[in-house]
């Protein structure tokens, strides 16, 4: 359709027009391409404007994309040997024409009016005050969306009658495709909240234009939707991000062309968004599918990214061994392919993991490795994140001054780059710090600052953690009812998110505060409940801490369980794949024998399922008595946690006594 792009006229860069975001000079530099009718209309418009220089006149230009409009305005400005003034009608009152006269520059050769709002009202004023146009020393071109023509014609017929000509410009598919391709290749500008929002707006318009020209289901559209999904996720608009990514995947799955790499990227992005939406199982599935595809195309970077993402997810679900495995797999790749950002990110993640495992020295080592990279590559978000992590570490080490220093370094960066989640996280951390220092007023200030952000961006985990912090603060301030209410809110939210670790932490920390206030009996139920949950998710050391705090024995295993320790240890080795084949037969035979006992038949069944690969506590523990549950908890903990395995080894060797 139409001719190839008209390259007779050079394109000159102009100041960014109303729609295009700052930094979109690349789009303005793209040669304009229009269909035959559009080219003619453009030539006609320029011819008319040249003749009307110094004379009033009314012209109307219709378009079906603000992107096209702005490109046309830039093109017209380049072709006219004179001065063109673009006025944004959003700044004008409803009675627009007197405003036009007041803001028009005397040197202007033509006025372009864009973004006419609320046409039903504006049209009436335009109709009645149209004679004001005769007072202008230059022509005026009103730029209108194509679908507003009828309304203006109907509501302002006298104004309409004043027009010399209407120029119609329609999107030309090759141009849309070329511009979209360029944007897809260069990616979105996302350094600041403003540039992200502008990029989101640009992507949405490009996708609308692609739909308009029948290219809405192309691979290019899929790629743009993926990039838009990533932008939206960064902006905290997770549901919208999901929608875009689902559409991208739908295109990729039904596309005849097939782009394995793009599909892998889209699945990766989708997984990331699902992570933020707390849909962790679906996120895992998405990552797994992406990993397979990245491996199929030999994309090591993609593979490393997925490993990192899987590690993050495992860490969140307190599957620490699995998290380590994934992070180490990522760290084996990133440096080899020279991806410093990836390397820094996974170093930080390993630091987070070590912190969770209470391996503080190791955590520091990883964080410092990350901090050596982020500033060098200009990644301010990474730098802020690792400063926050070092603060967390220092807090754990009870180096409160150092913790504050790191938190404040992070807080100096997060708002500047519009990273609201990071900002909220560090506010919460400062709240925890202040609480620890007994600066209750300051703690409240920081918690409230965090709570002003978390719900706004849908960060439920942070919101819950802050509520938990506020509950402990209220307890310290003697506001009992408020404290318990806040704790309940925090727990409910953590349950809804599915973070059992956090539930245990909420209860345990609350209990610890009660204990510190000398209210041991009140603290005990909270601490015991926390211990049970920690044990269930295999964090035996934390379970032990809670038990100690509650005044219980460090290790309170039933003797029967302790006697089973050698079998349980061997079973763990088989389940972990460390012992196979013939070597595993004794374990299987012992289990078979257990199955024939009266007392332990149910446990035998559960352990057999563990050997078959099941790991889900709730399903496995059904129908088990207290002894069986302890044994099962030990086995599951040992499969995930080296420390638990050490405990079991000790029991089996008789070096750990009840």
């Amino acid at each position, binding site marked *: 359709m139409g001719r190839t792009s008209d390259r007779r006229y050079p394109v000159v860069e102009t100041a960014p027009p109303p729609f295009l975001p700052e930094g979109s000079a690349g789009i303005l530099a793209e040669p304009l391409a229009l269909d035959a009718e559009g080219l003619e209309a453009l030539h006609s418009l320029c011819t008319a404007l040249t003749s009307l220089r110094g004379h009033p006149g009314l012209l109307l230009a219709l378009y079906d994309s603000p992107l096209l409009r702005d490109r046309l305005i830039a093109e017209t400005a380049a072709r006219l040997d004179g001065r063109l003034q673009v006025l944004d009608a959003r700044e004008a009152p409803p009675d627009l024409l007197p405003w036009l006269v007041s803001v028009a520059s005397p040197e202007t050769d033509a006025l372009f009016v864009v973004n006419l709002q609320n046409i039903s009202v504006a049209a009436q*004023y335009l109709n009645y*005050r149209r004679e004001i146009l005769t007072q202008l020393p230059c022509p005026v071109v009103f730029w209108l969306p194509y679908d507003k023509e009828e309304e203006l014609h109907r509501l302002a017929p006298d104004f309409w009658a*004043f027009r010399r000509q*209407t120029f119609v410009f329609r999107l030309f598919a090759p141009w849309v495709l070329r511009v979209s391709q360029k944007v897809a290749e260069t990616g979105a500008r996302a350094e600041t909240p403003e540039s992200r929002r502008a990029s989101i707006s640009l992507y949405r318009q490009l996708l609308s234009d692609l739909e308009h020209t029948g290219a809405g289901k192309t691979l290019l559209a899929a790629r743009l939707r993926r990039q838009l999904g990533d932008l939206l996720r960064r902006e905290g608009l997770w549901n919208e991000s999901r929608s875009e990514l689902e559409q991208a995947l739908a295109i990729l799955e039904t596309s005849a062309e097939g782009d394995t790499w793009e599909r892998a990227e889209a699945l990766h992005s989708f997984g990331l968004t699902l992570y933020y939406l707390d849909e962790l199982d679906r996120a895992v599935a998405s990552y797994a599918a992406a990993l397979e595809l990245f491996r199929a195309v030999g994309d090591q970077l993609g593979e490393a990214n997925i490993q990192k993402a899987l590690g993050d997810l495992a860490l969140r679900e307190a599957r620490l061994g699995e998290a380590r495995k994934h992070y180490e797999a990522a760290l084996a790749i990133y440096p080899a392919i020279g991806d410093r950002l990836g390397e820094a990110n996974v170093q930080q993640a390993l630091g987070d993991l070590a912190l969770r495992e209470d391996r503080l020295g190791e955590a520091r080592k990883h964080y410092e490795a990350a901090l050596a990279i982020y500033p060098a590559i200009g990644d301010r978000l990474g730098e802020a994140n690792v400063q926050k992590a070092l603060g967390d570490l220092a807090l754990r080490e009870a180096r409160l001054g150092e913790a504050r220093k790191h938190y404040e370094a992070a807080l100096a960066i997060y708002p500047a780059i519009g990273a609201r989640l990071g900002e909220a996280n560090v506010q919460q951390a400062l709240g925890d710090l202040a609480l620890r220092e007994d600066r209750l007023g300051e703690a409240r200030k920081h918690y409230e600052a965090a709570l002003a952000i978390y719900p706004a961006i849908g960060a439920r985990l942070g919101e819950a953690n802050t509520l938990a912090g506020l509950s402990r603060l209220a307890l310290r301030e003697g506001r009992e009812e408020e404290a318990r209410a806040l704790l309940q809110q925090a727990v409910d939210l953590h349950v809804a998110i599915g973070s059992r670790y956090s539930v245990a932490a909420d209860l345990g920390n609350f209990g610890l505060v009660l204990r510190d206030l000398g209210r041991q009996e009140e603290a005990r139920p909270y601490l015991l409940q926390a211990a049970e949950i920690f044990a269930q998710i295999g964090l035996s050391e934390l379970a032990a801490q809670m038990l100690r705090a509650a005044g219980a024995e460090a290790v309170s295993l039933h003797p029967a369980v302790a006697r089973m320790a050698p079998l349980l240890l061997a079973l763990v080795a088989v389940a972990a794949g460390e012992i196979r084949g013939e070597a595993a037969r004794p374990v299987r035979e012992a289990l078979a024998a257990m199955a024939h006992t009266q007392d332990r038949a149910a446990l035998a069944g559960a352990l057999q399922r563990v050997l078959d690969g099941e790991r889900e506590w709730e399903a496995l523990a059904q129908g088990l008595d207290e002894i069986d549950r302890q044994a099962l908890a030990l086995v599951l903990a040992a499969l995930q946690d080296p420390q638990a395995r050490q405990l079991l080894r000790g029991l089996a060797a008789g070096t750990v006594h009840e």
Partner: protein
Amino acid sequence: MIARNLDEAYLAFDPLKPLSGEQLQSYYVSRDPNPIDRIRAILLGSPDTPDKILFTGHRGCGKSTELNRLLTDPDIQRTFLVVPFSLADMLDPLDLGYVDLLIAVEAGLYRVARENDVEVSEDLARLLADFWMPQSEPVGFLKKGKDSPLELLDRWFEALVGPYGKLRLEAASREHLRRALASTVSLLITHIALLAATVRSKTGRSVLVAIDDLDKPDIATAQELFYRHATALTQPPCKILYTIPIALLYTAEFRPVSRNFSGWFVLPNIKVYHRDGSPHEAGRAVMREMVQRRMDLRLITPEALDFLIGMSGGVMREMTTLMQLACNEARVVGKHQIDLPIAQKAVAFIRNEYLRSLRVEHYQQLRLVARDKQVREIHRIQRRPEEEESELALLELLHNLSVLEYCNEDSWWDVHPIVATLL
């Protein structure tokens, strides 16, 4: 001033402005019949009779040009102090009431009198000032001071209807004045009478108020003004010429209400076809002269000119728009003369605009008009629900010139020639 090339011709055909001043002398083409001549005769025949005349016509037919010609007529100028009235400058078109109109008439008359150095007596000035001061104080218009009544009135009317007039810009002020004056409209009428009498006695001329843009408000506002408050509009004791929306003529209420006025006149479109579709040579000659006065006819081929005249439907502004479109189109393709293909291109631009605007219900009405050459009356008050959509469609067609009216002894209607190509 005749254009010698298409660049000059493009500027000479300007749909933006009615003819006035020098252009009125050079470009004006007389037409026959012309109701302005009858209006002129009525005005000059009895200058002191306070006639209220309604004047209307289709958009673009040349009403403003004819009014300009009338008001600058030497005999009219000699006989009357003309008070030209720009509604858009003085009042808010979206919130227009009959009280506003009467206030604006008094204000306009006062200002024109002062501009023409008509001496306003101390007594009259005090009377007006004493009336307006209490109205102005509640909204902070004027403060009592040492000003004379005339100085106060100068400031008051400037504040009211000046470039930043409160009557136009401030809804609260309008509401206040309407409430305050609704029951004292007779006093406003008296003020106008006294001012008119002053003008008469000091200048020997009667007053003629010409309100040109009362045809612009929506039909509901126009009905409210002319149907519900016709008495108030006809009471001022001076000649007033009101333009009204032509759509009012198609309503059942018009006939009884029009009897409140001295007369109503429609400026017809030029007939370029007879009712039976054959070319109307006299009308075409008028349109040809309209073009010839603006540009050298060698810039357009005879067949192109004839084609455009036919397609204009005899509407002056349509002809102007088509000519300037054709001029631009010729220049775009590098031609120095408008030929038939260029003329057809110009028509195609307009046709496409109609194509984008017309809806299914419009086409139904258009076919009826094309067949019957009639437009039935629109019964606004006793409208049946099933008629609503078709009446609205017909009003829109009249409004956007898809349907045009012509006058013989009786009026007849037809579809705009360009729109007719879409049927």
